[in-house]
């Protein structure tokens, strides 16, 4: 009997499989398709202080082995998340959920996190300082160690729950930013957000996406994500949630060997809404195949020897 349990900042989760923010809504719509209590947890739709419609459409472009999105943090705002979304989630999900939060100023992040911290359903924060699809915020906080540390400090000052900082890959030295977050008090690091990309339509000769650029995700980015998880693992001693193109139990193990304690599944949810359940079901057999008894034992395994 293999053990898929991992500890995520003091909260033990049944398995390390976590649907990524923006690909799973607030969970309850997926509960119509399968019992989402099989998940380790999930990271809910990026939430901001005020409601946002997001960017104009088209917001989606297909790529080789992936996709680009420029949704732009569409969400109902923190008050509606607390009054409407979380009660609906409570009816179908009995585990702690990860609250993904975004903002346009340090005050925004602190305001939204402080409000959500009071919700008992929330187990962790995942603070998104890396959204490539909004101007004047988001990713700009994630591209400088000083700004990343400032957001981390502001959120930590007003919250009681573990705080993961979600980093952008669109930087020169991701390890230094992770290190700055750790020193500012982050409880964990989550990476990677999407890579900035674009597609151009040959018929119209214009960018496919109305916002011109967007976040590239899917299996194509997995090697980049793995490399960054590996680098960040060397730089920090706090837990890492790895993501980027994960779509199988083998991918989960690969990310854990690179240094991830848990793994998020993003774009793959949009192609196969059952994929997280399928990965969880396949994981024990894949662990046996690679002679892994305890998943915890393999975290960072690629760094040893």
């Amino acid at each position, binding site marked *: 009997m293999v053990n898929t349990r991992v500890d995520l900042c003091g909260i033990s989760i049944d398995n390390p499989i976590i649907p990524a923010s923006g*690909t799973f809504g607030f969970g309850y*719509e997926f509960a119509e398709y399968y019992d989402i209590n099989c998940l380790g947890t999930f990271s809910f739709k990026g939430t901001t202080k005020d409601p946002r419609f997001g960017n104009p*459409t*088209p917001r*989606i472009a297909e*790529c080789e082995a992936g996709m680009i999105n420029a949704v732009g943090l*569409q969400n109902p705002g923190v008050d509606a998340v607390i009054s409407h979304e979380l009660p609906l989630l409570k009816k179908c999900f009995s585990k702690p959920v990860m609250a993904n939060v975004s903002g346009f100023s340090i005050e925004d992040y602190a305001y939204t996190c402080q409000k959500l911290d009071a919700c008992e359903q929330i187990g962790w924060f995942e603070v998104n300082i890396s959204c490539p699809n909004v101007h004047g915020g988001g990713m700009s906080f994630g591209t400088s160690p000083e700004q990343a540390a400032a957001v981390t400090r502001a959120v930590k000052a007003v919250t009681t729950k573990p705080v993961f900082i979600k980093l952008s890959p669109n930087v020169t030295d991701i390890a230094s930013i992770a290190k700055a977050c750790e020193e500012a008090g982050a409880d964990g690091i989550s990476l990677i957000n999407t890579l900035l990309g674009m597609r151009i339509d040959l018929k119209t000769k214009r960018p496919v996406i109305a916002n011109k650029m967007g976040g590239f995700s899917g299996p194509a980015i997995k090697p980049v994500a793995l490399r960054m998880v590996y680098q960040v693992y060397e730089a920090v001693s706090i837990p890492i949630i790895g993501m980027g193109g994960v779509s199988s139990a083998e991918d989960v193990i690969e990310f854990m060997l690179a240094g991830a304690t848990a793994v998020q599944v993003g774009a793959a949810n*949009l192609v196969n*809404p059952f994929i997280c359940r399928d990965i969880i079901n396949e994981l024990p057999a894949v662990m046996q195949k690679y002679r892994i008894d305890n998943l915890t034992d393999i975290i960072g395994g690629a760094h040893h020897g």
Partner: protein
Amino acid sequence: MTQGMYTVTENTPLTSSVYRMRLAGDTSALTAPGQFINIRLDGHFLRRPISVCDYDAESITIIYKVVGKGTEQMAQIQAGQTLDVLCGLGNGFSVEKSGERPVLVGGGVGVPPLYHLCKQLIAKGKTVSVVLGFNSADEVFYKNEFEALGATVFVATADGTLGTKGFVTDVLGDLDYDYFYTCGPMPMFLAMEKIMRTSGQYSFEERMGCGFGACMGCSCKTKYGNKRICRDGPVLEREEIIW
């Protein structure tokens, strides 16, 4: 929504660029005409959302136009092959609101989802008119099929090679109806919006990520709040649409 493997039983051209595909498999997730399915194709990351033209207890008919690499690949699929399909997506048309003399207005590849709707309305004893708009006579499909259901069918072609020369709006002006349903390109919708005299339902198209409401890729604003074309649509009521 269900996910399953479906066997292609037919994949034949109706015109030079429009194909009809029949798929055998579980159709229990289809609850209304105007819903769509989302098809996975080898070598393509995202699925292809295609409206359901007709269905019964064990088969689905879709009609699609070859417009890009995905649909080019679909056109090559042979009977006997299996496809991974998400079935029963979107809200579909609300048949209950039809009135007694509904008109169904289809433009080009927007025509297919109206077929099963027409079937249901006629089964309910409604007097159905159908207005089909195409560019040219050689692009026309399903005129006879709608007539066989018992609908009164009008065709408009932009070049006048079949039926009324012009657009669906050139037919609709003189027509008697008490409700409308439509699917087609945006310019047709905008022209209709100026002349339609009753309530009705528009079925929209948008570039989608997932097709089942998760990614927020196909959102639009309505008078009743933000909606996702894939899940809260593709059918919106005339009264709620912000043009």
